[in-house]
């Protein structure tokens, strides 16, 4: 299990190579790369603010829960903070397992948990230069709620 939160750019290919190296027995590795959406050219950058050590603690707990629910060889999360330009990678999540189903579901679950439970404040900078803080979206909680029923 590996978690990195920081201002350095994320290299998804290198991160994928890393989890494959960490989990040589895995028959399946599913990864997700999240990027800053330009929203039709409206958004120029996103600011991600974390609260160490609470942010790390919360995500680590979600990773532990993921490992409890699925038989996994490894999970890896890299999350960027600071100002991130449109098009750049903001998050990389990967799950390695013996078989694909567990890896797919674990990666999906982790992303939903990150979206709803992770302690990150986000500020959007428009191309006009205007900045605004982003409030939670109801649909993120609906995504998260899927897993409560399925257990």
């Amino acid at each position, binding site marked *: 299990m590996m978690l990195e939160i920081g201002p350095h750019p994320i290299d998804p290919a290198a991160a994928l190579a890393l989890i494959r190296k960490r989990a040589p027995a895995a028959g399946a590795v599913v990864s997700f790369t999240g990027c800053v959406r330009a929203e039709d050219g409206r958004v120029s950058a996103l600011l991600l603010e974390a609260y160490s050590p*609470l942010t790390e603690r919360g995500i680590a707990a979600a990773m532990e829960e993921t490992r409890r629910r699925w038989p996994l060889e490894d999970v890896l999360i890299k999350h960027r903070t600071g100002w991130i330009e449109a098009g750049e990678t903001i998050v990389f999540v990967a799950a390695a397992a013996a078989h694909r189903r567990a890896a797919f579901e674990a990666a999906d679950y982790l992303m939903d948990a990150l979206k709803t439970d*992770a*302690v990150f404040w*986000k*500020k959007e900078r428009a191309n006009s230069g205007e900045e605004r803080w*982003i409030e*939670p*979206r109801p649909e*993120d909680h609906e995504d998260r709620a899927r897993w409560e029923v399925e257990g």
Partner: protein
Amino acid sequence: MRLTYFGRLSDVAGCGEEDVDLPASVQDTLALRHWLDRRFATDAFVSDTVRIAIDDRLLPAPQTLEGATRIAFLPPVGGG
């Protein structure tokens, strides 16, 4: 006392973090919320959507400030 403001509260306070001497009348988190609202001429801090962490631990309000060194104010976190 070190006060840390996250998200939009850093805009309200004009900084992300500051060291302040609290008046003797401010003994718990509820009094601190009201004190900050008066100081910054806002009603942002008394809102129950703003959570408080004392020395990096999230606690149900109100709590005594006795022995605390860092108080953090957490507005709702942003979605995707």
